Structures are given as C-alpha cells and as structure tokens.
C-alpha cells in the first residue's frame, strides 16, 4: 500500500514537473568541463582543457586560456580524461533483456530468411535495463542491429542511450541494411530447405537483388507511364472543353488535327491511368541499398565470405560495410582499395568455430596499417559496457592507442554516417561526453561523469542499486 501510494505521489510530481516544463521554456543549460585532459579526437588534445556546452551542443573547446563566461556552471574534470561519448558500432541493445526468456527477446525474427523490411526501431525498448548498465563506462551511442541468422535481417539504427522513446533516442534510422553471409545464414537456409551451401546462399541473394532491379524498373516504367498519362489527360481534358464558337479555318485544321479527330469519336474517351504495380515492402527496403541510400552491412567472418560480399558489391554497385570481418586482415589491401570499412569485433574473437579459425587479436591493426577504415564493436548486448576494453585489447595488440579510441569515436561516427554531429569534441557537435578517471582504454578506469545531448546522466543502474542495498552485508 505504502509503496503504491508513494509511487502515485511520485507520478503526480513527475506529471506536474513535465507540465511545468511544457508551460515555460526551460532555461538554457550551460556548463563548462574544466581541468581535464581533453582528447578532442578532432586532432587536438588540451591538457588541461575546457569544453563548453550549451543545451545539447558543444559551443567551445580549448585549453586553459578559453574563457568560461559566468553563466556557465563549472564542472571539475581535473585529473580525468574528457573524451567524446563512446560509440559501439555493433550491439543488440534494446532488443533483448534476458536471452533465454522469449518474452524479452526481440532480437531475431527468423520467421523468413528474407526480412529486409524489419526495422529495429519497431522493437527497441527504451526502458531496457541494459541501457543504463551500458552507459556506465562511457558508451553514449550505439548501432542497434537485428540478429544475424537470416539472409536479410532488417534495418539497423544508430541510437543515443537516453530518451523516453525510440524517436527521442534516434540519431539515424535506418542507418544500414543487414545481410548475413557464412554458416549461420546457410544453416537457416538449410532448416527451411531453401538452400544448404554458400553457393545457394549467394544465389538466393543475387536472385533477390535482381528482383529488386526488376521491381525498380517496373516502378520506373510506371512512373513514366503516369507522367505520360498526365499529359494525355490534360490534352484530353482540353479537348473536352466546349469549342469556341469561331469556325476553324481550313488551314488550322490541316495543321493541327488529322481529319479523323474532327469526327470526335476516338478523342472523347477519357485516357485510363496505368495500372499501379503491386508494392513490395521487402523489395523497397532492398532498393535502398541498390540506390546507394543505405550501406549494406554484411556479416562475414571468413575471407572468402568477405570476397563474396565484395563481388556482390561490384555487381550491384553497393555501398558496403563489413561486419566482424574476423579474417578481414587477409583481404586488407582489397578492402582498402575499394574503401570498404570494417566494423571489427568482438576483438577477442576466438578460433572457436570453423568459420573463425583465422581469428587474430591483431586484426584491427593489420587493417589500419593497410589503410582500411575501422570501427570497433562489442557485438554484445549485456556487456556493451566492455567497449573501451575491446578498444584497449586492440591497442594491446598493436593498434596505436589514439587509433583505438578513434575506432570507438570519430571513425565509428564516420562509418555510421553521423560524423557531422558525433564522434569528436568540436564546436557545433552534440554534447555526448565522457569524463573518465584515467586512460579510458584501461579496464580498471572508472567513469566520473557522463553527458548525453548535454544532459548529465546519473551513474546508476539496477546493479548499482542492488549494490547499495546489499553492500552493508547480511
């Protein structure tokens, strides 16, 4: 009883507060992070540095000389690193809560091998507890992708990890369209007696993309016919207007209209509009990649699967991003030449399946050295919080530390298509900022502050609440 009463009071207070917020324009929120090592990821590090934020935007970044106007609240970042909010380019956040409980699992539709029309935004749960947990190491922004078992599994989105609704969280949706190559997709095909080899899988993909081309042609033809129809209709409508009482001269008649038209029988029939071709949401979803409006994010571990993706991209002129790319280091030069980025990860990928036998910790560095653009992902849900550690592991295996940090900030933002507003501490960018006590790549470093779109994020989760409850011991 007591709990529910206080809940009611709390709700009432919340409602009143939000009503207030709507009633009056909230005062601008302004703060300055002062004194930390500001690693901008835009080419400069200020130590000590300052970052000024107004509402949700970074308005100034600089060294100790940067003036902090009095209307900016000062937040002490001394002794800490101030870095852009971390971006995980491969997660399932919001789609899954407890793996083994179906009712909490919206990860993998898997009812049809071909589901390019599925959108993660239709399933993401903004109240997922995993979101609060993920933020506590400085992760602010994630690519949420559907499960990877199907051939085309749906449309991924880039989300900020704060907001009451998916609309509020959305940074970019759709961001990429997901395609699965390799064993998992082949297994799904086998289970449905559709195909049972990599040959069959690629055959199916080509068949679908050709279908899309046909569909697009049909749509184009329809649009053309529609245009023609408009013209015909207009001229027909004009011809139906009562003719002027001036008798046409013989010369005019000869010049403009055949004598038969004068009889008026054919011309009086209203032109029929062309038949509209049936719409197909799956093909329309795929059309976005054929029209290069969306990159195709291709799950591929083995180097031959990566090469298959490159062949498809050549044939259909696709914008490609490789997901995982466990053996991408074996195709590094080709990937660099074709400017196909790789979202590396999990970095601790092991030779634990037949298709990951070539797994190496050095993958990220070998790719970077060859000139391939890389981002680093956790490929996780519950432990997205280990993103800085994933970057750290790549650094421990050769990737220069600043490149490792870039792979979870600015380089990730570029690959996800959000670098105009995300990925670095730069004037005009969204104020996603992490303040970390020590090198963010070190697993023992703790988070001091986190800001998403300029708002201070409470560093709590159900786990910290459980800790508070039980720390005194029983």
């Amino acid at each position, binding site marked *: 009883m007591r709990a529910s009463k206080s809940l009611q009071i709390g709700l009432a207070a919340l409602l009143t507060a939000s009503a207030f917020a709507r009633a009056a324009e909230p005062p601008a929120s302004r703060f300055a992070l002062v004194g930390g090592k500001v690693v901008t990821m835009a080419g400069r590090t200020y130590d000590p540095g300052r970052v000024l934020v107004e509402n949700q935007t970074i308005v100034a970044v600089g060294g100790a000389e940067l003036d902090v106007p009095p209307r900016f609240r000062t937040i002490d970042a001394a002794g800490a690193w101030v870095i852009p909010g971390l971006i995980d380019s491969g997660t399932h956040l919001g789609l899954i809560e407890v793996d083994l409980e179906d009712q909490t699992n919206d990860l993998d539709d898997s009812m049809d091998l071909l589901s390019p029309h599925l959108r993660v935004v239709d399933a993401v749960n903004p109240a997922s*507890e995993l979101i609060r*947990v993920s933020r506590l190491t400085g992760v602010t922004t994630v690519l949420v992708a559907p499960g990877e078992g199907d051939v085309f599994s749906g449309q991924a989105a880039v989300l900020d990890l704060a907001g009451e609704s998916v609309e509020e969280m959305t940074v970019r949706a759709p961001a990429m369209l997901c395609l699965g190559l390799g064993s998992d997709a082949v297994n799904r095909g086998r289970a449905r007696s559709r195909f049972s080899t990599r040959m069959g899988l690629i055959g199916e993909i080509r068949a679908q993309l050709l279908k899309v081309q046909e569909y697009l042609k049909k749509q184009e033809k329809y649009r053309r016919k529609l245009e023609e129809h408009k013209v015909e209709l207009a001229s027909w409508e004009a011809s139906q207007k009562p003719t002027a009482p001036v008798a046409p001269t013989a010369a005019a008649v000869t010049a403009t209209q055949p004598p038969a038209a004068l009889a008026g029988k054919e011309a009086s029939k209203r032109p029929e509009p062309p038949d509209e071709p049936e719409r197909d949401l799956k093909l329309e979803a795929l059309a976005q990649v054929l029209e290069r409006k969306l990159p195709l994010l291709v799950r591929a571990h083995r180097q031959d699967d990566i090469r298959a993706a490159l062949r498809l991209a050549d044939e259909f002129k696709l914008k490609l991003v490789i997901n995982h790319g466990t053996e991408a280091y074996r195709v590094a030069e080709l990937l660099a030449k074709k400017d196909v980025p790789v979202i590396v990860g999990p970095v601790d990928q092991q030779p*634990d399946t037949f298709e990951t036998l070539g797994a190496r*910790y050095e993958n990220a560095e070998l790719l970077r050295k060859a000139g391939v653009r890389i981002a680093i992902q956790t490929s996780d849900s519950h432990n997205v919080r280990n993103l800085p550690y994933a970057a*750290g592991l790549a650094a421990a295996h050769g990737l220069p530390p600043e490149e490792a940090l870039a792979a979870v900030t600015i380089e990730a933002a570029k690959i996800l298509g959000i670098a105009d507003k995300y990925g670095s501490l730069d004037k005009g960018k969204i104020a996603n900022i992490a303040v970390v006590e020590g*090198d963010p790549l*070190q697993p*023992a470093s703790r988070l001091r502050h986190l800001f998403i779109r300029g708002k201070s994020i409470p560093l709590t989760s159900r*786990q910290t609440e459980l800790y508070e409850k039980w720390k005194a*011991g029983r």
Partner: protein
Amino acid sequence: MTGTGTRMGSSAFAALLTLASAAGAAPPAAPATAPATPVAIVGGMLMTITRGIMPNGTLILRDGKIAELGHALAPPPGAIVIDATGKYVMPGLIDTHSHLGVYPWPDARAHEDGNEMTDPLTPHVRAEDGVFLEDPGMARVRAGGVTTVQIIPGSGNLQGGQAVILKLGLGNTLDDLKFRDAPRGIKMAFGENPKRVYGSRNQAPMTRMGNAAIVRQAFTRAREYQKQWGEFEANAKAGKPTVRPERDPKMETLIDVLEGRVRVHVHCYRKDDLLAVLRIADEFGFKLASFQHCLEGYKIASELARREIGVATWPDWWGFKMEAWDAIPQSPGLLAAAGVRVSLHSDSANVAQRLYHEAAKAVRYGMKPEAALKAITIWPASILGVDSRVGSLEVGKDADIAIFTKHPFDVYTRVEKTLIDGQLVWDAAAKEMP
C-alpha cells in the same frame, strides 16, 4: 589438503572405492619434464601474492620447484637466466572452471563431450574421459599465463560428474598433464539448467522442487547402499552367510562425497538456490568446496564466509538467463571483503586467456587490488585444495610462473613467458600466438 584422492583406507570397502575412483590414482612420481638445469628469473617485480611485492627479486627454480626467492640473489652457476627487469613475475594463474578439451575448439558436434545429458544424475562420469588433448584452446590459455585448470563437466545434470585438474604443460598424454596428487572434485548443478534440460523433455526435474528432491533421493540411496555394503562386509568377516550387493559406481561416488573424499563444486546462481544447496549439504552432512558462478553470492556473503565456501565467479557476465539477472560486478569485491575466497573463473577458453584483466575489471568495480590478484592465484588454488603446491611464489612450491610485460591489470600487458614445473611452456619471443 592435498593427496586425499590417493589415501588408502584400511577396510576392504575403502580399498574398493579407491580402486573405483581411478581419477585419484597417482601418475609416476617424478615430473618427467623438470629440467635438471636450474633456472634463475632475475630483476623482476615479484608478485608473491602471499608475501607482498618484492622489487628486483630473484626466483631460483630447481627440479620443478621454487628453490630460492629473494632480493637480487646471484643466479647459481650454470643456471638458465631469464631477465625479468621491468617485468612482473606472478605465480601461474589458476582457473577453477574450465571446459578445455571437453568442449574443444572449433565447435563441432562430434567434440561436445562435456555434458552427459542422459540422466540428471551422472556423478560417476569423469571429465578426464572426455578431454581432447589436441584442443587448441589449451595453448592459448597457457599463453595467458594460466598453468592450472580444473576441467569440469557441464551443468545440464544435477550431478554432472567428476572434475580433473590439469597443469597446462607440454605433455603428450593425460597422465603427463594431470596435476599430481590433486584432490578429486565433483561438479553438481542447481537452478535453471537441469530443470530446463529435462523439463523440456517432459522429464524430471522440471522444477526447483524436482531438483532438490532428486538430489535428496540420490544421497539417501547412497547412504542405504553404504549400509548394505557395511552389513555385507560385517557378515562376511563374521563368516555369516551373506549376499554380495551389486556395485554401483554412481553410489560409490556419492559415498565419497558424503565421506568428504571428493571436493564438491556446485554450479548455482540464485540466492534461494544457494540456500537450498546448503540445506541439502547440512541434511546429508557434506561440505562444499565452492559455489561456481554464484552470481547472487553477495546476498549471503557472510554465510558463505562462515562456512568457508569458496566462490568462483565472473566480474561481468549477467542477464543471459533469469537466474543471472541480479548479477552485479561489485560481487567479487563484496565477497572478498566479507572474507570469502573468490576465484575469478573463466567457463570459457576465451576469458581464460585474460584472467588478469578479469581481475582488473573486478578492481574497477571495487575489489581491492590485492584481493583481485589472489582471486586468480592462491584463492582458486585453495578452492581446488592445491594451495600447498601452487598459487603463490614461495620456496618449496611448484615452479609455475607467469612473466608479464606490465602490471597484470594493465590493458597493454602481455604474458611473455609461462613456466610449468620449471619448464618453459610459452615464450612470446619464440613464436606467435598459437
């Protein structure tokens, strides 16, 4: 604590049981791999674990043991000298929860040998009979500085079978790798897994009630079996006519549990499951060596400390099933602070390569650094009952050593060398990661 596996009882019954449990049979006494030439590890930061940190320390290894330990000792003449200047010298790491060899890489149905899921009670099966010695995971884990692993069956059964403790040396046979004279161990499991495995087949157990009932029934039967054999032997001794009972290896194993001849490691997550296991253990009078995973252990930390039950766990796995929902990364720190011996375990050949970073994560969430180091060395050794042999740098202990390029918690650290019984089994300078 060691050696219980080979202790011979005086009665015929005890002898019979010992024979039945060849898991504890002693392999040849002298380690064949111990080099005759002494080894001196000089100049390093000795992380002794039990006696603090010694800068510029020297370790002298002889006959597979740590022969001397001190500040800037002179290497004995003719010794192989390993320069560890600027490096961190740790005792070899110990993993109490490994499935190396019973779930080898790469995943292949033909190689899944860790879960005998044909009966919820299979205490008689032994992990050692399923270990695939060519598992490439072993080399990787060794390259992560791990020298001792307890390989246990999976958690599909309530009593999954017996553990085997290996040293990850370069031997060619199981006997080469077996940790000599290590106590026997058994894996039991409670909670979701057994009830899911059998419940989904419409078999018992389908509920937690079923889990408990089946285990109680098994131990009750074991007591009866023991009584029958006792009567038989008494009668036989007295020359009375008697019928020899039929032997049952399952029951023989459970009697070993009841008599304290086997260390019991129970896979268990949720607080009420942990408490249920304690009730059953009390009822039948056996002790637990550890709870494995034990994600809600922090909720009964003082009880676990009072009973001296170890906890083997991860710092950050959570949420993959309901019984993992209340896992918190602060748990290892809370448990250690309450006086519980914690083992940061792997349950995976991936995690096992970086147990030292698991320790670093635990520190991030509040565990004291000294405790986190113990949680990958001496505490797991103690949980396995081999702490008189391994788990710290002390004179007389086995020469199982891991040399780190930086502090083990540093993300940039690498294991440069691993030695087992004084023999170099991993050398980063010599070759690439296996």
